[in-house]
């Protein structure tokens, strides 16, 4: 198809909802085969942009402005007409786009068939070919299962295959790789770049994280509160020669530090002592280590590598087949429920899925519950502790009676930290703390957790797949791969001289390439 004009031209797009402006005077021109990354924190208007371009606006959106496709005539953006080019939408598998009771393969084949206007048989063949190109591991047979059975990375690959099987002219990626783990994000972005090179489609990638601009490069449009703050090449924006807001945004991009760190001598009493704990599939997987008060340990590995199994054995959620776990000089498995409960008060949890929060409780009740349940304090004292904890995490000005269910993920995460602070724990278990947060949220949460560690000195047990998180919160690490611990030691040592392939892969996943200025990486 010969195009005399740009693939996509947006002029003066305004989107408002209930009197609130979501997007203001947005203009963009995208040539065929070009890519643009729309970057901003949550609420900056990128969701509204995607809704309008994708053709699924909200009922209360009021839209003005015009859009022209493929050099055709400019039409009002408010009208939902079929665009003359093929537009594909690439969602994030964690947003649960699939019907939970039907097979993923069935759904994808139907999507491809509808996009192509082809019968199901040829759509299935197209999908199979696309999957072959992307990954050997993901086959149509594997995808013939319910979405609950497939891990998110497999679903992401399947979605990308479905998108490319439809041979689109323009792909709208909606935070497509967010929260998949740095290794997976890197792999998926490389696959996306390869597909774009092969098929030549235009790409509009909407994101709140900094991995896509750092890895894909190319043109970046920075949005803030509905307005374009800056537009330019990724390398230049990352280098610091940019608007103050952009620089602030990119400064949030965590980098690994490879400097030699003076080892901190282990000072406190032993908090967690593990003797020959059987944790993995093979009988010889037994673990012996010691975690002292105030020290911290990171369990680093991809999803499914066995970190959480070890965590459950450590915290005596389940009876381990062999070995002993001693928490604060007491064997948890030997104690009765009631006595173990008293010890367990000194453990706190912070999880990335916010599942330790009861959605029905209010903000204040969540923070006050450990105090009320375990101590006999007056209402004033409880209120005092609550205020202190909430101030530390920045939630003091929020309405205390709001139910937890109505909070944003960022607020929920901070609420978990406040609840942990209030309990004065000896051990804090942190599980993927930055999941679901945008760039600013991640920076602030890192600061909150580091501040918590410095002021209260609990021991941290961090479960993560991101070495930068491990480095900022812990000194020692255990690297997991396929259910076993492959490497242990001080993080600084592992970073400088990784011995195992798994460790190297995890380090590479968060090591960002230096992008030469003015050159897109694809």
């Amino acid at each position, binding site marked *: 198809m010969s195009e005399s004009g740009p693939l996509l031209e947006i002029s003066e797009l305004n989107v408002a909802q209930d009197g609130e402006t979501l997007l203001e005077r947005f203009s963009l021109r995208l040539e065929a085969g070009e890519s643009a990354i729309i970057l901003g924190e949550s609420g900056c208007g990128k969701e509204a942009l995607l809704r309008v371009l994708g053709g699924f606006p909200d009922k209360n959106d009021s839209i003005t402005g015009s859009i022209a496709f493929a050099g055709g005539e400019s039409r009002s953006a408010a009208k939902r007409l079929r665009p003359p080019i093929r537009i594909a939408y690439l969602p994030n598998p964690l947003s649960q786009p699939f019907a939970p009771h039907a097979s993923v393969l069935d759904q994808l084949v139907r999507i491809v068939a509808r996009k192509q206007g082809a019968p199901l048989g040829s759509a299935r063949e197209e999908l199979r070919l696309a999957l072959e190109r992307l990954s050997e591991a993901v086959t149509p047979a594997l995808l013939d299962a319910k979405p609950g059975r497939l891990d998110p990375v497999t679903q992401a690959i399947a979605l990308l295959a479905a998108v490319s099987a439809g041979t689109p002219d323009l792909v709208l990626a909606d935070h497509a790789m967010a929260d998949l783990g740095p290794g997976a994000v890197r792999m998926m972005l490389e696959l996306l770049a390869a597909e774009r090179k092969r098929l030549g489609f235009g790409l509009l990638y909407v994101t709140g994280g900094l991995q896509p601009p750092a890895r894909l490069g190319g043109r970046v449009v920075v949005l803030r509160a509905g307005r374009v703050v800056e537009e330019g090449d990724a390398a230049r924006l990352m280098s610091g020669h940019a608007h103050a807001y952009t620089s602030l945004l990119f400064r949030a991009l965590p980098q690994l530090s490879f400097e030699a760190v003076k080892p901190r001598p282990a000072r406190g009493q032993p908090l967690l002592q593990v003797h020959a704990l059987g944790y993995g599939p093979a009988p010889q997987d037994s673990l012996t280590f010691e975690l002292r008060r105030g020290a911290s340990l990171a369990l680093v590995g991809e999803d499914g590598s066995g970190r959480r199994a070890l965590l459950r054995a450590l915290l005596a*959620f389940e009876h381990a087949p062999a070995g002993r776990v001693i928490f604060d000089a007491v064997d948890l498995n030997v104690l009765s429920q009631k006595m173990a409960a008293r010890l367990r*008060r000194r*453990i706190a949890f912070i999880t990335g899925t916010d599942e330790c929060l009861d959605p029905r409780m209010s903000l204040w009740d969540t923070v006050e519950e450990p105090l009320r349940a375990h101590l006999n304090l007056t209402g004033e004292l409880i209120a005092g502790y609550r205020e202190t904890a909430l101030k530390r995490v920045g939630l003091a000005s929020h309405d205390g009676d709001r139910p937890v269910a109505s909070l944003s993920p960022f607020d929920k995460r901070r609420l978990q930290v406040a609840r942990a602070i209030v309990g004065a724990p000896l051990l804090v278990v942190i599980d993927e703390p930055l999941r679901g947060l945008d760039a600013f949220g991640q920076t602030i949460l890192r600061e909150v957790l580091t501040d918590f560690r410095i002021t209260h000195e609990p021991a941290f047990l961090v479960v993560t797949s991101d070495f930068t998180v491990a480095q900022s919160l812990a000194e020692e690490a255990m690297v997991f791969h396929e259910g076993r611990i492959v490497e242990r030691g001080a993080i600084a040592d592992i970073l400088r001289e990784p011995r195992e392939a798994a460790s190297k892969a995890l380090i590479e996943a968060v090591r960002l390439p230096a992008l030469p200025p003015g050159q897109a990486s694809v």
Partner: protein
Amino acid sequence: MSDTPVLGTVLRAAGWAGLGLIAVTVSLSDFLARAPAGSTQSGAMLHAPCDAHPFGTDLLGRDMLSETLHGLSQTAFHALLGAAVAVLCGGLFGAVAARLPRPVALTLRGVFGIFAAVPALLLTILAIGLSARFYAPLAAGLAAAPLAFVRAFDHVDIDSTHAEYARATGIPALTLLKRDLTFEFRRMLGSVAARALAAVTIILSTASFLGFGAEPPARDLGLMIAAGKASYLTAWWTAAFPALALILLILCARLAAGLDEGERP
């Protein structure tokens, strides 16, 4: 999206307002009624609605307006009693039982499940037949309790993730129970009570229609409609007004319970 909550709130408010109005009417029934309950007027049999008798008279010459008002207060009072029993022995007990030690909880669930397999109406008739008629509202409440118990029991999510984490951090089971009761019940008590009221009203009135109601001379609406059954095909007012009053009570209770379709009625 934003009109559903508004509609829901309006209807719920209308339901509670209706119940309030009925409560006022019931408490003033002795004043509003022109004649004491059950009093007949000779020579005034089966008069159509007119100025002297706005709701007409029945087969025995009783003024239908007075009878309806007295019957409404009887039915409403009995239903309230029965609803209280159903909520306490059914809903509340079910929510508490779910957090008891597992073998005890499952046994209770099994026992109540057997009784919940029989239609509540039949249980009520049986219970009233076995005991004195004086206990009719109590029997209706107890008969409606098994179903309420089973629903409340199944509603408690004992293995929810946040409960697991709470136990892992040493929060005692009693606190978790308090959590459930405070947050669920406080939010739902109004709608649970209204729903129980509607269900018990239907059961009680049907039971008294079938002849298992409270002792005469107290006549409630079900009994009135049963009495009107003989004559209503020709004299429609003998059954229509009690029926309307009954439907109004049930409707207001249903509306007050809310439009939550996720919940069963």
